[in-house]
């Protein structure tokens, strides 16, 4: 493996981790969204390193082109959020969550590092074979997708319908602005607002 490939991995990996960290720590959602974009691009780079050429493109188109844009639109729609997140002392629940997830993902990382690539009973496509050079490319991928994966592909269409109908169902319609969030102390026994 060439030095270039190795350094490409490390650069992309470092960018991915750094931008992920920025995303989750940033107070300003716009900045978070942009660092998510950076993360996605870094990940696309890693995909190329993994011979996922087609997926790298898809990643850019869908994530960068759709998801991040959707986020930014929403952030713009909502406008500046009046109250920044309080920087008070972290609650027990948060510390516990952090510790728990660190332990769990640590275990996964530990298991992953001990993983031997020569998986028993699996055959890797040798790079010398001509078709294998195509692995992950548009042609090979779409052939696989439309030959073997057509059923989930069709199921995805229903999923997207759900997303469209659902988004309309929840977010369409009259805007009911209330000056103060409705917060009644006592139990609302009978509720009949539309």
């Amino acid at each position: 493996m060439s030095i270039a490939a190795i350094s490409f991995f490390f650069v992309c990996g470092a960018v991915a981790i750094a931008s992920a960290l920025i995303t989750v720590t940033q107070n300003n959602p716009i900045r978070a969204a942009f660092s998510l974009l950076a993360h996605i691009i870094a990940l696309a780079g890693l995909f190329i390193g993994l011979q996922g050429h087609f997926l790298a493109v898809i990643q850019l188109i869908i994530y960068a082109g759709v998801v991040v844009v959707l986020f930014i639109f929403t952030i713009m729609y909502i406008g500046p959020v009046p109250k920044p997140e309080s920087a008070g002392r972290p609650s027990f629940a948060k510390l516990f969550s952090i510790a728990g997830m660190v332990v769990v993902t640590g275990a996964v990382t530990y298991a992953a590092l001990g993983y031997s690539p020569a998986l028993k009973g699996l055959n890797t496509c040798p790079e010398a074979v001509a078709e294998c050079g195509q692995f992950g490319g548009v042609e090979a991928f779409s052939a696989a997708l439309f030959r073997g994966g057509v059923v989930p592909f069709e199921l995805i269409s229903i999923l997207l319908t759900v997303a469209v109908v659902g988004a309309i169902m929840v977010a369409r319609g009259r805007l009911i602005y209330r000056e103060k969030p409705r917060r009644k102390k006592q139990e609302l026994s009978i509720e009949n607002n539309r």
Partner: protein
Amino acid sequence: MEFAVERTLLWIVLLPLAGAIINGLAGRYASRTTVHTVAVGSVAMAFGLALLAFVRLYLLRAAGEQDAKLIYTLYEWFAITVNNSQVSIPVRFIMDALGGAMTLVVSGVGLLIHIYACGYMKDDPSYARFFSYMNLFMASMLLLVLASNVPLMFVGWEGVGLCSYLLIGFWFENKSYAEAGRKAFITNRIGDFGVLIAMFLLVQAVGSFEFETINRHAVELAGRWAFGLPALRMTVATVATLFLFLGCTGKSAQIPLFVWLPDAMAGPTPVSALIHAATMVTSGVYLICRLSPVFAVAPTSMAVVAIIGTATAFLAATIALVQNNMKRILAYSTVSQLGFMFAAAGCGAFAAGFFHVYTHAFFKACLFLGAGSVMHAVGAHGDADIRQLGGLRRFQPRTNWTFLASCLAIAGVPLFSGFFSKDEILVGALSVGDFFFFAPWLGRVLFAVLVIAAILTAFYMFRLYFMTFWGDYRGGPSHDNAEHGGHDPHESPGSMTWPLVLLGVGAIVGGYLWVGALGLLHLHWEPWVVWLEPSLASIGTEHHTSHIAWALGLGTTAAVVGIGIAWSWYARKDVETPKRLKEQFPEVHQFLMDKWRVDELYDATILGGSRRLGIASANFDNAAIDGLLASASSKAVKGLSYLFTRIQTGVVHAYGAIMVAGIVAVAWWFIFPHARIDVQLDENGLARNPVHLAAGEGLGYEYQWDIDSDGTFETDWQSGSKLEHRYSIDELKPGSVVIFAGSGYGVHTKQSKLMPGEPFHLDENLLGSWQHPDEYFKKTYPKLVGVLPKIEADEDGGVIIRPNGAVVARTGKRIEREETIRVRPGESVSIGEAKLTIAGYAQATVAVKNAFGLISRDSITFTIARDSGSNAPQAYLGGTR
């Protein structure tokens, strides 16, 4: 189509159900006449059909078919897989001798009470709802009685509980009534839990739910350890019957679940009479009789039943002494009488217990209905205080006479029905004898307590009677009642009094179905016992003439004493004493009239003590049982509920944190290895040499074994999770006592290091083996029964035994009483029928490594037996060191 009598069994259940549905759905729109025509008509038809079926059954028996029963199978209800075979549960009704008798009682008394209710509930706005519930109750109760298998019976069992609950809360305008209903339901549910568990245990062991099959396999049940755990030292029969009895305590209001019944009197009086006196509450006794063969092979459970029954009989009677509310007295009296029934069943006198169910149905229903008639007369709504009544015999002659007859019956006055049943219960307790081999004196104690309870019964019943019907009318309940205010009490309408008369007649003559009680007079006409014989088990006790004489004598005395005291205190006081008497016997008069002396006498007698106990119990019942069991436990559950719901803070982050806790726990489970070591044991809880060890398996586990737990592993990491090893003497540790106790009792092992000087405690379940080596011994050394040898550990892993009078022998040679012997590891001695040996025990350890390279360990200790095949006295002895 040919008329099949068997089919009537179905209709006996369906007719009241149809009545319930019709009245429940359409009753609101129908007239009162229609409603009670449907309700009473359906029950009357059911009674008629029951009579028909019973006659058929009787004819079959008369034709010589000893095991006659009517069976009607409707369809296969459901099937379950038990131990890899399908068990089919049909909807099947069966009427045998026991069920036939019970059906007649239920439908007959039910019919009378339905008729009574037409008058009693005349003015209630929810007339149709009431009768709908009542009919539903009849259907459930008849289903309970006629069901041929446990699940079907359970439908009825739950159904009667539901109806009872609905009817107790019928007058829900009063909040406490609804609470009472709920209490009844919850208490019953606790009992139902017992029935469900017992059901599962029985089907697991027998492979069928049919009562008949279960009864046939009763002996097998007694020979098998519950849950397959010899360590529990309880047989399936014992555990299952104990759980069943838990159900019975709930349904039949026994200690500790009796709290609901007195509160249940909140319901309308016909309900109290039908459900809470005559039928539903006796279903626990019925269930025990149904499964009597299983109970009969579980002496421990029988003892529990008898003790709880007797204690309830006594405790409830004492509480009844101090009550003033008519229905509450009757309620506690019911609890007490149910205690009598359970005492009888526990002593193996199933026929007597069930006979009391039958007589009790008459006189207690009559008493309740009489109380209802009184309340109706004086305008009391559910709570007639006897201190405000009196002299009603002038206004209500019919009620008076029937009430008196029933009081005489319940008190056990000779020749009234209660006399026969109570007498038989006392005989049963007295002659139970050796059946409770662990406590041969128990029967006599129970007898004594029951006699006292009988005195109390006679006393409080006649206190109730005299205060209500004798003396002068004290003006009725204090509350203003426009309808009754200023009026004198009046006799109730015919629809109410005629059932009273019929029940009263039953209370008088019902006992003659059992004339065997007069066996002393050489009358051998015992229709009841003969009739029930095929349905009930026998524990093989004999009724000696002396037992019968004692029971007869003390039972009658109890009735006379109780009534006499009540008469002298509550009847005499109100009657104007003739002056002549006063002049002639001034001392006597002074004695009787002087309040202080009466009190002194009162205090001096057993009644005084009981009375104080009664007050204490009533307070305890109110404060502790009610407060603790009902109120505090529900508060505790509510408090727990409050605490539990606090984690539901409504904040997403808290939710996330709790999820993380779950994730960590699940990940921990899968990432860390779990070493678990098991050893194959024989049915006595001993391992056989060579020993088969097995470690818990898991994905990617490797195992390493340390056979003797000395810290060095004998094997390398290997993938096999099983190991077979023959232990040599060097790998064993000394100091385990193994006791083989006579066949059928299993083996008792004690695995411990036996510290020097530490006494060795014997397992109580094995006492029988220790004590009765043979009949010869019992006869020769009767005084030695009950003595145990003294066993202590010594310094070198053995034990020191001092016979202390027990039969201890080594190699066939009896050890003398005061001698002390040392039993070394590897040696054995016999004690009575049991054999005691000092065996070696071994400890094995396994280490487990999983795919992550994490390691965990587990050890197990076990005693080793040498031979697999034969039972008893061949323990592996570890040799003499």
